[in-house]
């Protein structure tokens, strides 16, 4: 934790994106989280992803609930819209905002307490409805703000810093998201930015309900031996199923792959995803297979990361509701109250 604002000076040779911004322009205020917190790495990854995607800051809304993770939207995208909601209620607020203005990019930031305990119902229903958003959980397995009690995602049998053992089963947010119809599901690790940044870029670009579960070690309360969410444990048990490269319009990355292992996917906005298979049998376009695979590997003690599932045919709540093309917040009284003649017409059609 620091009291010193980050100096405004920046590297003289920093690259600029298509909008003329450097990545420093996507920063927020200085973080007040513990030194070394995984969440700060994720904030930095969000900054990098938005910079690479040339996102105009005013086009993005960041929403969060309560907790260490939910404080982080203050630390990135200082020029964007933000809403810090009641504990566990971010998904409802986000759904409402999206209904009102579907043209914005929605980034929900939550944690394992905010999403897997008090807000579990909200989390599930928001994804079930197919809200076009990127929902990130910064998952550290403990309640950091209240000194490190186990959260609902802590693995059964893992040890707390004080020495206690967790006897409850862990909630599997990735499994739930797959089950209720997220069309983009990934898991990553805050200590591996090369993996996190392209996943966030792909998630923000995906025009449907996207979910990324990012394991983010709590350096204060959950980074000890016996923890399954520590830097060391995750690095040791990390099984990446694939490697994603997001071909950003700014700087196309050219990476050499083993022939036959790379699948390119062109997204709706013309950008391209390149997916390098690290496990030859793993198919990220098969939802049932993905769910089975995740269960198997979890039973084997692995932490599977990478792009777990993607449906190129993303679904969206607005399509389901058949809303008009214009964002609802731009409709005037004239369109919303078309008058008694229109009402008559509708009533007549129902007779």
């Amino acid at each position, binding site marked *: 934790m*620091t009291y*010193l604002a980050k100096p405004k*000076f920046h590297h003289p040779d920093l690259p600029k994106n298509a909008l003329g911004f450097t990545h420093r322009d996507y920063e927020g205020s200085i973080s007040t989280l513990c030194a*070394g917190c995984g969440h700060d*790495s994720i904030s930095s990854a969000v900054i990098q992803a938005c910079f690479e995607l040339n996102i105009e800051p005013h086009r993005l809304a960041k929403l969060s609930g309560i907790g260490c993770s939910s404080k982080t939207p203050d630390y990135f995208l200082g020029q964007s819209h933000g809403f810090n909601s009641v504990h566990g209620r971010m998904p409802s607020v986000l759904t409402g905002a999206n209904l009102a203005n579907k043209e914005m990019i929605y980034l929900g930031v939550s944690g394992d307490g905010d999403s897997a305990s008090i807000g579990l119902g909200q989390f599930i229903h928001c994804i079930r409805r197919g809200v076009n958003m990127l929902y990130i959980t910064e998952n550290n397995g403990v309640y950091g703000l209240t000194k490190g009690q186990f959260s609902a995602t802590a693995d059964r049998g893992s040890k707390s810093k004080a020495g206690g053992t967790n006897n409850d089963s862990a909630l599997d947010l990735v499994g739930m998201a797959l089950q209720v119809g997220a069309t983009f599901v990934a898991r990553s690790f*805050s*200590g591996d930015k090369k993996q996190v940044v392209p996943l966030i870029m792909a998630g923000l670009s995906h025009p449907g309900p996207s979910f990324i579960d990012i394991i983010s070690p709590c350096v204060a309360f959950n980074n000890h031996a016996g923890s399954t969410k520590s830097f060391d444990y995750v690095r040791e048990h990390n099984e990446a199923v694939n490697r994603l490269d997001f071909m950003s319009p700014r700087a196309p990355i050219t990476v050499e792959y083993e022939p036959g292992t790379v699948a390119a996917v062109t997204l709706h906005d013309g950008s391209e995803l390149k997916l390098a298979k690290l496990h030859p049998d793993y198919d990220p376009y098969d939802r049932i297979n993905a769910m089975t695979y995740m269960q198997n590997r979890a039973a084997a003690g692995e932490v599977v990361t990478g792009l777990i599932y993607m449906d190129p045919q993303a679904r969206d709540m607005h399509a389901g509701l058949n809303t008009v093309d214009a964002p609802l917040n731009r409709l005037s009284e004239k369109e919303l109250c078309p008058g008694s003649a229109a009402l008559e017409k509708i009533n007549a059609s129902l007779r």
Partner: protein
Amino acid sequence: MNPTDIKNPDYFHKVVDCQWACPAHTPVPEYIRLIAAGRYSDAYMVNWNSNVFPGVLGRTCDRPCEPACRRSRVEETSKAAQPVAICRLKRVAADNKDKDDVKSRMPSAALVKNGKRVALIGAGPASLTVARDLLPLGYSCVLYDSDPNAGGMMRTQIPKFRLPETVLDEEVNYILALQPELRLGQRVTSMKAILDEGYDAIFVGCGAPRGRELEIPGRKEASANIHIGIDWLSSVSFGHTTAIGKRVIVLGGGNTAMDCCRTSRRLGGDDVKVVVRSGFEEMKASPWEKEDAMHEGIPIHNFLVPKEFLHDNGKLTGVVFEKVKAEYDAKGRRNLVNAGEPDVRMECDDVLVAVGQENSFPWIEKDLGIEFDRWEMPKVSPATMQSTNPKIFFGGDAAFGPKNIIWAVAHGHEAAISIDLHCSGDNVADRPPPLVNLMSQKMGIHEWSYDNDISADKRYKVPHAPPELTLKDVRMEVELGFDVKQAFLEAERCLNCDVQTIFEGPKCIECDACVDICPMDCITFTPNGPEAELRTRLTAPTTHADTQDLYVSEPLKTARVMVKDEDVCLHCGLCAERCPTGAWDMQKFLLNTPKAGCHA
């Protein structure tokens, strides 16, 4: 790349750009912090120990530290980027120190002499430095000079409006208080005679006392109104010359030319101009000296080569110049060739010739074992300042031609070490190592014993006295110096480059906190590789060529290495504040160059 050896004093010394660039290696950030803290006497002593003449240098130094200053690489727009005003801050320490306090901290003359006698030829900055270093050790030093007062070119060639006599006297007197034997007012005419006096060592610090001539038609005939710049300046300094004609042409583009033209303005020259062979940018004068001259209404004419002095029966009437242009050959060397334009004629009453200075050793006999090269310069070792006669040492302008005061001081320190080694019967090539201290600055979780919250201010301008007053009085100092408030603000621009980022790999958990917080994107965790290739993989690769070193760690747990590009580090300490395990620490690197007597 191999892991960086931070135990090598050169590694962190190079990070402190200003100190590395200073010939005397003055610990600049150390004294700037003391100035910010209002500890002017302490700041003065840090300077005095390393550069001997802080008050003089704070006004006249050529400041090699400032072009090196990291601040100008860090400030955003390169056009407005300005280094910290290091030189003028030094003056603040000298102006505001407590004189009695400083005096009480000066070394005292040795109570017991060691029986060794050293002759110092010339009483300028180089010889005075040797005297200061050797006298407290018990050496008997004999100071020779043809002028009646010690100080050398600092007294005779630097105009008083840049360096008041009181400032010079004070600092010369600190050395004279150590009681060297003075033989002033008598010119040394024979090295052999000096050798015959049986000195254990002789130091030649007689400067480059001869102004270069300009042999063109009319020189002899009009010589009454054509003066050699440095001779004329010293004549002004001694009060022999008090006036000059209304129209003056100064030939030459160095700092002496700038002093000549500005002095002329004060002695009755209304229409003073500087005429230079080269272009404006290539002029040898420091940019701020050119600026000060132009500020006083003195135009600088470039690409004009003097061809002939015009005279009317021996009375100078003007100068004819050939117009030239610069052409560059295949090797990039510049040639001045005729521009094909008509000659330029300028009228004048007096000409000052400041086209360079030369060494001149007519008083050194050729059979004393002192070898000279084909430019008639003595063969001197740059490391030891020793000539081919092991007893005889050279320093200052006498050693390698005209440089400036700070070089003379640096030479003096090295020569004093050599003389001490030589007189003790030790090998002068065995140089003592520098005195280095590396100390953590951590006071608390986010508390450091230095101010890491750097000011974003632009460089402050030193206030000047109004020209209507200064142009009337050749002894009135033009620069007023920073007041303490401005000095504090300027000092806060210093990045504290001596507070080093120290990385301990075994403590690192690779959480990326330092990478994320670093405002300058200096830090990268990546697989190791050869330097050129590794540089391309940095978070923000440098595009300029004169790069700083990369700080590379031992391999970490993930087999990657931590690579830090020292180039634009703000030394703000945020990496260390953000590090959960204390793998980063901020440690102050204090390096003092060795002085005579250190090896004992």
